[in-house]
């Protein structure tokens, strides 16, 4: 009996501090996002007025928000597409090819993932600078002057410049992930295929790809969530949505409304919409990519 009660005490003391912090700084703010989305909140006077779903109605007619969502969807689709293709390609090359410097390449490719998003924005500021930027001066040096652009302001280009930076930062991370799941494939599969005269491309499409498919499928959810987050951080630092909302993304618009504009209720309603959107998108992607899983 005594032992039982001292065990209970121990369990309580170990769990209470962490759990209190989790509830206070993670769960309550999350509940507040939903609660505040139903209120109209003034900035300075801190007045609160319950308005029901009115904030959500305003969102539907907010052209700037719709533009931000449009950009966001484009960013998610393009970043996912290019990163999956490149990460799988390089993972295959490193995993299947046996040549010198294999490990060195892996180490280099992963570097962007350890850099702060502020550093990445700084680096791409140096790359995209129209006059003295690395990209334009390189293009001019190799005689491709015609391709030099105002990467962060001209026409429809800026959002693609953002996409390029996000792909650059993501490839290494997902490549390492795919390499790990490729390493789990038993080597005799490849030996058997090779004895049957299969080419590397056939081995990829018949062995590697089907066997890492469930891993790729899991990462699709990662892409949706992390692209929404990282595009916000990158854009917030790099352009803050400009010029003219061309690089505006969903969470940055929310942050501007809530923190910059002090329309907390409206900002949180936008947050709720983005949150539901990301969940729905992940569920849809999960559903349509559902196919028979090959096991080994």
């Amino acid at each position: 009996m005594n032992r039982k009660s001292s065990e209970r005490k121990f369990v309580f003391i170990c769990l209470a501090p962490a759990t209190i912090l989790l509830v206070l700084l993670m769960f309550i703010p999350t509940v507040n996002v939903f609660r505040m989305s139903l209120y109209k909140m003034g900035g300075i006077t801190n007045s609160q007025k319950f308005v029901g779903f009115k904030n959500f109605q305003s969102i539907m007619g907010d052209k700037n928000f719709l533009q931000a969502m449009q950009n966001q969807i484009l960013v998610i689709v393009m970043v996912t597409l290019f990163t999956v293709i490149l990460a799988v390609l390089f993972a295959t090359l490193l995993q299947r090819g046996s040549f010198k410097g294999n490990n060195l390449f892996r180490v280099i490719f992963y570097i962007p993932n350890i850099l702060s998003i502020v550093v990445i924005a700084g680096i791409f500021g140096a790359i995209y600078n129209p006059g003295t930027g690395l990209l334009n001066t390189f293009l001019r040096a190799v005689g491709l002057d015609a391709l030099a652009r105002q990467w962060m302001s001209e026409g429809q280009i800026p959002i693609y410049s953002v996409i390029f930076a996000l792909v650059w930062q993501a490839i290494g991370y997902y490549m390492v992930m795919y390499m790990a799941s490729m390493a789990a494939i038993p080597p005799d599969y490849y030996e058997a295929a090779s004895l049957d005269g299969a080419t590397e491309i056939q081995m990829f499409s018949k062995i590697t790809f089907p066997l890492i498919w469930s891993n790729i499928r899991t990462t699709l959810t990662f892409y949706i969530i992390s692209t929404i987050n990282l595009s916000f951080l990158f854009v917030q630092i790099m352009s803050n949505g400009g010029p003219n909302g061309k690089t505006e993304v969903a969470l940055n618009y929310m942050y501007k409304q809530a923190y910059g504009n002090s329309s907390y209720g409206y900002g949180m309603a936008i947050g709720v919409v983005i949150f539901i959107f990301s969940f729905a998108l992940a569920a849809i992607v999960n559903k349509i990519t559902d196919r028979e899983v090959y096991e080994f």
Partner: protein
Amino acid sequence: MKNSKPGKIISKIFVYIALLTLAISVIIPVGWVFMASFKRNSEFMGADVSPWALPKQLFYQNFIVAFKDANMGTFFFNSVIVTALAMILLLVLALPASYVLARFSFRGKKILNTGYMAGLFININYIVVPIFLMLSSANKALGVEWFLNNRFVLAVVYAASALPFTVYLLSGYFKTLPKGFEEAAYIDGCGYFKTMVKIMIPMAKPSIITVILFNFLSFWNEYIIAYTLMDGNDTLAMGLKNLMAVEKTATNYGIMYAGLVIVMLPTLILYIAVQKRLTEGMTLGGLKG
């Protein structure tokens, strides 16, 4: 032989070209920032200046100016304090919680486990403004200025935001340890607390190191929470953003690139030292952002 020799060589060349292209696209921009941090301001402007030229001399004064005049020294100190405090708090809170969740059975365990799992889905970018409002209303209610622009509070927020993933990782590891150790310890008269601190936590060292590595990177690189909650006690990432904003108007390129180097150098050194552990640990699961 199934493949003709020249075909094999050509495909190998293509593979190398692909690998080198990506490697160069990573190394050149990062390396260029290091080079640019040693250039004088006059080497950035003017019609005949190429950004690809090497610095005329190692103009290390950029770093001195960045540290002193641009306050990057103070911000560096702030970042060190916040990262260290957050890490200590996180370990002190998460280790006992994960241990108990993994190895004891008690009422409410299922709810707590679900709660911590649910925490994995909460993203800080959505709740950073509500956290800000909560802290500012705490200030108003108590008539103090303590809750905002406070390095300790920032560290607490960092620790809380890292809790779900850390508990998930650590309790997963604690579950794999054999049961016999604790029983032997209890028979020898070791109490619960002593068993945990002296026997079980040391055994979890590999996963603790993984936790420290990942959270060091995320705390050190963190930007949006600090930007929202701090005003004056800036961290390095915030200081860097200010330098970049100044750069657009006043054009002090050399100092900005020195700032970039100051922010990324510690993470690069850590990465080179432990890269194997980091990329292996990553596959334990986890999502950045």
